[in-house]
């Protein structure tokens, strides 16, 4: 009897080891320890044995039963460790399931990056309407009465107003600067705010020129500020936008609404300032005109130029985005061409 038990144990162990998955193991468990198992038969036949034999066979049978339980547990752990949720083959190189892939326009992306940067310096965000009067687009900004920019060759005047003057002559705004006086009239000084937007010029278009393009203008009006703060501000902003220090230089420039005016050039990021086609081989890109707000503009905003001063910075968004991505045709921005726009995830 004891030999038979030993035989059952041995065969049982072999069966357990041969189990290939948990279902097979469960079947084996039933086969080895279930009611119809050889082990149960041995246990059932115990009654016919003499007491000594009964005791030793009984102990042995229980031992085998426990050994099976142990061995099955062991095997089960082994199988769990090796198991996969997926039955059968799976190709891990197949692409993942696509998430919805919309995108903001690259100009908007740049604009929001700048908004975040300026917000962190306490600037408010303001927007002027697209249509303005000559009064706000030119007169308030110290443009001479016969300044060429006022001509219909340069500015899009609205039908029926083109031969009027001042408040009554309306146009698609040719620059954002008119908005600065609107803000100051509404909020007074001190003020620091940005006013991004689209501007319009009557131009012949090509890869570098557009009739509708985007600007981003900032103005600070305060007491006791010096223009050299403008340069620090720009360095801070560019560093935030491009994620690294960008060298800038400040040089003489001229605009009717500033005195003195200056140009801020940014080191060409394509060539690192060594000179390339994009920067006309001089290592610098002209991105930001700016300057100290002209006394006549402060007067137009009902502010006393002896008390207040400040400075403008105007960023050409199209040029900056072109620089950021290496885009070579400004007209793509208004193309609505998804083959282009889908690239800016």
């Amino acid at each position, binding site marked *: 009897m004891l030999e038979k038990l030993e035989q059952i144990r041995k065969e049982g162990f072999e069966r357990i080891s041969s189990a290939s998955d948990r279902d097979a193991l469960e079947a084996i468990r039933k086969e080895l320890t279930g009611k119809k198992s050889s082990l149960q038969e041995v246990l059932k036949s115990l009654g016919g044995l003499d007491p000594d034999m009964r005791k030793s066979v009984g102990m042995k049978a229980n031992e085998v039963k426990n050994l099976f339980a142990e061995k099955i547990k062991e095997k089960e752990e082994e199988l769990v460790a090796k198991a996969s949720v997926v039955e059968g083959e799976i190709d891990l190189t197949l692409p993942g399931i696509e998430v919805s892939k919309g995108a903001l326009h690259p100009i908007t992306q740049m604009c929001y990056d700048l908004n975040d940067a300026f917000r962190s310096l306490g600037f408010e965000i303001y927007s002027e309407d*697209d249509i303005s009067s000559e009064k706000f687009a030119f007169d308030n900004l110290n443009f001479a009465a016969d300044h*060429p920019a006022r*001509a*219909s060759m340069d500015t899009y*005047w609205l039908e029926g107003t083109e031969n009027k003057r001042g408040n009554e002559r309306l146009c698609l705004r040719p620059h954002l600067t008119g908005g600065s006086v609107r803000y100051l009239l509404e909020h007074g000084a001190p003020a620091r705010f940005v006013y991004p937007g689209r501007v319009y010029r009557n131009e012949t278009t090509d890869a570098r020129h557009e009739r509708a393009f985007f600007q981003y203008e900032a103005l600070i009006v305060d007491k006791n500020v010096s223009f*050299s703060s403008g340069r*620090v501000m720009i360095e801070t902003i560019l560093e935030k936008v491009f994620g690294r220090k960008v060298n800038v230089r400040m040089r003489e420039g*001229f605009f009717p609404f500033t005195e003195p005016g200056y140009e801020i050039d940014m080191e060409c990021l394509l060539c690192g300032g060594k000179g390339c086609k994009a920067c006309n081989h001089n290592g610098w890109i002209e991105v930001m005109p700016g300057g100290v707000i002209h006394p006549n503009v402060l007067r137009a905003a009902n502010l006393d130029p002896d008390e207040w001063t400040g400075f403008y910075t105007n960023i050409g968004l199209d040029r900056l985005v072109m620089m950021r991505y290496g885009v070579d045709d400004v007209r793509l921005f208004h193309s609505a061409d*998804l083959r282009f726009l889908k690239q800016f995830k």
Partner: protein
Amino acid sequence: MNISLKFLERYVDLPKDLTYEQIAYDLTMRTVEVENIINTADKFHDIVVGEIKEIKAHPNADALKVCIVDVGEDELKQIVCGGSNLTEGHKVCVSKPGAEVVWHGEGEPVLIKESKLRGEKSYGMICGATEVYLGDIFPPSDEREIVDFTELGIDCEVGQCVAEVAGLDDVILEVDNKSLSNRPDLWGHLGVARELAAIYKVPLKPYPTQLPQGLPEYPVEIQEPDRCPRFTATIIDNVYVKESPAWMKTLITNGGMRPINALVDITNFVLMAVGQPQHAYDSTHVEGDKIVVRLAHEGEKLVLLDEKDLDLTPDHLVICDTVEPMNLAGIKGGKKDSVLDTTTSIVLEAAVFTAPGIRRTTSYFNEKTDAALRYEKGIDTQRADLGVALALELFKEIYPECQIKAFTDCYPVKTENAVIDITQAFLDERLGEVIEQSEIEDILVRLGYEVSFDNGVYHCIAPTWRSTGDVSIHDDILGDIARLIGYEYFKKQPLKVSFEHSVNQVKADLTRKLREFLAFRCGFNEIFTYPWIDEKYIHAAKIDTANSIRLATPPAPELGILRSSLIPGMLEAIDKNERYFDEFCIFENTQVFEKGEYHPSTEEETLPVHKNLITGVAAGKNAPELFYRVKGVIEGMPGYCHFEPLTFKQKDKPSWADEKVWLNVLSGKKVIGSIGLISVAALTESGIKNVKAAAFEINTEMLVPFPSRTNEYQQLPTYPLVEQDLSLLVDESVTWEQIKESIKYMVKELKFVEEYRGKQIPAGKKSVMLSLKIGNDDSTMTSKQIEKKMNGIIKVLANKCKAELR
């Protein structure tokens, strides 16, 4: 404008160790942007002086000669040449291998190589003037003539670069004319020399300023002193048309003009030198021997050189003799004032015309001549002195036999010096640092100001050449000081950031949230289109244009209407993209316009009405699905963007929408936009063939953003909810809304699952599947309670919606 460094040498000796890159840099930083640097000697590499030692006949060609030439190298070279004027012992122009020349003066440059010509070895090429860029300076008399320096009497050495011999070893700084608009004084090399002298602290060389004295007067009458504050006329006899000397032709070429003849070249040279436009009239053409500066009469004409007429109006200033206009003042000459081959006596005009009149007239005739370019920026009357003095010096040099017969200086209005006071305190504050008094005075004096300092105030008298509008207020003086010190030398001063108030702009943030919601959560791509839209798409969308705003001079005739909806732009974008994509979602957020009255800033200013719209389309194949997709976008919008929920109702069909499938979007009771399928007509008229589209358009100004996130926390259920699915059979006319409203109050949650029409469903009916959750607030539902509740729900559905269970 081109600035020639050789030309500048007439006026200033710059420090010897300065490179031209440094000069360009300093001008860019302090005065005016140099866009380009051109080294004129570059194209003359390997083009040198050679001496012809021997001329032999070519064995195989009568028209060619074999020359033995010394080009300054170790051995003599053999060059085959067909020149008509080859002379032994003469110095000529030789292009060595590697040089680039222009064949017969035409086409692209060609590289010179050692070669064989009709069997004879030829080292390089003996060149004619037009082949080596010298056609203007040494014009050849016949096509086969080569440049013969010995014959031209030019001193040079064998092996010397020809650029040097011809004075073309110059550096040209190209300056963008636009950047000179506010600095009329810089239109001329003297002006640039003044700037450089001030930058590098070196003196200017003396230059002529003296007007002729003691001569008889020539009659000149100025009727419009406001338009012409000064007119000088100099009568010069015994002159004739001839070539200018080589040095002058070289400088004119380097300055960017072409030499013509000495009479014209002198006026152009003066223009380049001091920026004073001049005009030479043939004296015999001036009828009545008198010049009158007046406004044109109505209907008067100016006869041009090409016999065409220019129709004048009484706003046009003209220079006339006693009979008729001879030229359009300061802009363009007529036939009468031209210098001809027969001319022997001239009237030389050096006048000043004020800028506004010149600007009006140039834009009227669309004539931007070199003279007009200078006058329209405003030049000081004193500049005429420099023009006349230099012209007379040149006439005496080039025409030693000429006679100055008469001179008139009609000078009704003088440019006054601008006088400006500026305080030390103002400078200290605005410059952000204290600059010594001596340094400020030094800078201003170097720029031509007269300065005195008293009690903290600088009393500044600006030079006349800066007093025509450029310098007029103390800020201008501040600018001059700042730029001459150099903006890059000022200490960087960081901005102060104050924490007085937080920037909290919910309105401004709303459009950003809307855009980000559409892009990042709904998978839409943002586009930008122009505010002027092709009328084709406006008509396709059936948009009423009665209230539209139009451009006076649109980019194209069909682009005259400014948009009042963003839908037409969407149609155009679908039209463009459908050939590349089967399915896509796009949106745009910007302003649209229509007639009306709106005062954004002042009562005096009235603008058309502006609306800020956000508009999107989902394009693809399955129209109902596209519609529900767009509806889902609008339903999800308030939650993400934090404003009051939106509702839908059919009130007012948008013009672009499908007959059946559209809804207005409401905020409270106000209609703030619409959603719907784009109508078949709109798709067809836009040329859209492959896709259908659903659109939404919302006026963002009608959305009321919450001041902050306001989602309220809801207690989690203490007792489990029971989920039950129901499949109902209802009439086609029963809407989801009716089903929802009828049992809403009985359930904790209610969700639409799907709608089904098919074989098992009788005609006129549809199956609606829904999923709901029920539960007790104070206990777990027992199965009896569940059964009772469900029976109740089914009963209500049967009563209110005639629904049967499937």
